[in-house]
């Protein structure tokens, strides 16, 4: 059963829909708070975002991914279509593999980032942060390809954390432990197909589970049964936000302004300016933004996205960034105290040529103590690696925790 039928004349009466997991979520949602994530209700925090965060790092957390925008791309030209769309070389993403990428407009400015799942030979799922169907259909002209948005036809859960593999093994998914990072496998499950990919937004061991909405409830139940002794917890979007910042992952609309929603051209970013130059493959003869990006590579970028390690423990949210001589060179886009790294961390945009690893900067932090405002010019240093990147994220098979 679909969540809702877009063809129904009544669909406009409802703007926001319960996800196929809604009943299960509602039963556990002690806060009784809901937020909106595009067409769906989403849970910010079931009980306490900090506890849910720790589940993600110490046991495992379950996050409802259904609202994520999903597309199915099939047809003889599916691969060439994707290769023109995204910046990286999709021929390297074989069936059973997943590729993270960004896609740009002709100016080489990032429209969105997302993951492409090569489900079967020539059959792809593209997940995006923003709604993309218009742009995808524009891109499809001249290709023998079918592109449909199937957000409402696929229920999805993220299962993230060190015990996640143990939970899936307990669900009797044969050889689930053999899935390597960015791999996927299909399983028979309760008379339907369950797809498990070793992907996620937390920088840790974790999986994403994809199933038809009719089987959403039973998937949730079986997962929580299997996870009972493995510390499984439902996880809300606030916890996920903390996990992704620690992992150093960027978020459209937060760490960069998606090109399609940006009126002032200067405010968009290229992949190079987001630290994603490794995703740009100029060996491909054509992809959106290639000509502009070649120019940028030759002439230099305007901005750099950096990870900052900041002194003290006051989160540097929305802070200005200065060079050591006190000149304003940028601003923080995401920040938090990282319990796992035990560091005060941030993602920031700075003007080039700033942003070299090891460069010292200052961050202007405003914080409140019992309503009284304080200001602090904190020392910060640019670091290269993600703040949280445990070996278990990559180990195959994952150890039992």
């Amino acid at each position, binding site marked *: 059963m679909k969540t809702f039928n877009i063809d129904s004349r009544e669909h406009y009466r409802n703007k926001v829909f319960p996800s196929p997991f809604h009943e299960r979520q509602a039963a556990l949602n002690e806060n009784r708070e809901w937020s909106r994530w595009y067409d769906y209700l989403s849970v910010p925090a079931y009980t306490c975002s900090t506890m849910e965060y720790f589940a993600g790092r110490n046991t495992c957390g379950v996050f409802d991914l259904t609202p994520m925008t999903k597309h199915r791309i099939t047809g003889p030209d599916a691969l060439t279509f994707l290769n023109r769309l995204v910046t990286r070389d999709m021929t390297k993403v074989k069936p059973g593999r997943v590729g993270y990428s960004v896609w740009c407009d*002709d100016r080489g400015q990032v429209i969105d980032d997302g993951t492409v799942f090569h489900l079967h030979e020539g059959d792809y799922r593209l997940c995006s942060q923003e709604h993309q169907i218009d742009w995808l259909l524009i891109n499809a*002209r001249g290709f023998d390809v079918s592109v449909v948005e199937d957000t409402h036809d696929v229920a999805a859960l993220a299962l993230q954390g060190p015990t996640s593999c143990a939970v899936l093994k307990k669900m009797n998914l044969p050889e689930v432990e053999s899935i390597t990072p960015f791999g996927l496998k299909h399983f028979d499950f309760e008379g339907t197909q369950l797809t498990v990919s070793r992907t996620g937004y937390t920088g840790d061991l974790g999986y994403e589970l994809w199933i038809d909405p009719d089987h959403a409830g039973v998937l949730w139940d079986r997962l929580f049964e299997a996870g009972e002794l493995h510390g499984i917890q439902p996880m809300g979007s606030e916890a996920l936000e903390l996990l992704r910042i620690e992992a150093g992952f960027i978020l459209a609309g937060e760490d960069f302004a998606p090109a399609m929603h940006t009126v002032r051209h200067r405010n968009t970013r290229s992949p190079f300016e987001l630290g994603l130059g490794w995703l740009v493959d100029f060996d491909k003869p*054509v992809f959106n933004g290639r000509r502009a990006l070649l120019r940028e590579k030759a002439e230099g970028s305007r901005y750099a996205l950096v990870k900052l390690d900041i002194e003290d423990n006051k989160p540097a949210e929305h802070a200005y960034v200065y060079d050591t001589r006190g000149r304003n060179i940028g601003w923080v886009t995401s920040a938090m105290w990282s319990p796992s790294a035990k560091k005060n961390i941030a993602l920031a945009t700075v003007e080039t040529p700033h942003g070299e690893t090891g460069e010292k900067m200052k961050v202007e932090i405003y914080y409140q103590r019992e309503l009284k405002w304080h200001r602090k010019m904190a020392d910060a240093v640019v670091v290269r690696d993600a703040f949280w990147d445990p070996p278990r994220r990559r180990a195959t098979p994952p150890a039992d925790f």
Partner: protein
Amino acid sequence: MTEHVVIIGAGHNGLSCAAYLARGGMRVTVLEAAGQVGGAALTREFAPGYRVSAGAHLLYALDEGLRRELALDRYGLRMAADSLYTIALDPDGQFVSVANGALGGPGAAAADQEAMALYHRQMNRFADIVWGLKDQLPPRLGTTGRKDLFALGKLGLRIRRLGKNDMREFLRIAGINLYDVLQERFESELLKGALSLDGTLGTFLGPRSNNSVFCALHRFNQGRGYAIPAGGMGTVSVALDAAARAAGAKIRTGARVAGIDMEGDRVRGVTLEDGEQIAADLVVSNADPKTTFERLLGLRHVEAGFADRVHHLRTRGCVAKLHLALDDIPQFCGLDGEQRGQRLVVAPDLQYVEHAFNPAKYGEHSARPVMEISIPTVHDDTLAPAGKHVLSANVQWAPYDLKGGWDGAKDAFLDTCLDVLEEYAPGIRGLVSASELLTPADLEAEFGMTGGHWHHVELSLDSFFMLRPVPGSAQYAAPVNGLYLCGAGSHPGGGVMGCAGRNAARAVLAGAA
């Protein structure tokens, strides 16, 4: 080694480009799908013994510099008539003539004489701004390149130099519709009707559509009037062909390009319909932009934003071409012998013209069309058997995408055309021994221009100069390494002019330098 350039299409612009490239030292091969050169600038038989300029029939835009530089006269270009003026036909013989800003004929209103002189003076000054751009490489926007800024500055300066009053008038009317401007200035309905045709001919616009003033300016040629080449419009192309060959270009007819070949991110050559592959360092396309990118290259080879702009190019042709073989010279009401050789216009008033346009919006042809008529045999007896005549007319509006298709509708439309002609030249039906009506669909089939469009791509302010055909290929170079455009779809647009071909050659030579 000298670079090998393949030019797709031997339209007059392809030939002009070939001549300049060959003179610039390039090795040039022109591949033309049709059996002869010229594209829509050609003369051909349409009935046994009767020949006609089957596309363009009146010459008003041919670049004089190009004519001299390529020594076209040495290669046979000669005018059978020039300085032809416009006569607005009237069924009662009360016609009005407009010759270089002066009104004549029994229908001319005294009150309009002065207004016409002023209109003529101003439109010519304004048109100078448009024409002044025609042999300029359009600047790129948003760069700080000196050439780009200089070109933009020059445009600004040209406008500034009009002086306060004319500049204000130019800025006021350049983007608006001709209907309003004509209503402000003139009394005579007939005169207004005829002048309004200049703003709409060849475009998907009525007199009340914005942009029609701009289109009228695009046709204003400093009062030089219209010319008819001896032997028809094909003579221009034949002369260009000879000039290009003399400069060393190879020109092959009957060679239809099926696709542009790529190697990595560069063009490598072209493949003909019969499978023959021809290698090239550079490919220049005289085919229209839609044909070039959608069919010959494939949108997959360009980035999606650019592909989207190409997809949305407006290419709905709306002019049909009517050819009549006549046993005798038709008697147009009130006209004497010399007058019948002028540019004759059926556009009796503004409402009539606007009403002729309206149905086109909904995929229907005019119930009572407007016409631009020429009887070239008045000046050139080589086109028809002795004593016989040929009538050639551009007829509007006949939309390319006629509801229900043209197949069943052509005969009726031909009949409509003859009915209208009969009103202005009683008895003409009886003189017709053969006829041919080319709808935009026929023009597309014969000349390969998408939609049968006169300008390849609608001519309007949003697709002119640095915006033509679309941003990203307005400097003749396509956003594909080694590929260029050189046809009417590029700046400065359609009409037998030759400038797009020459400018493209300059861009190619500058790029290769």
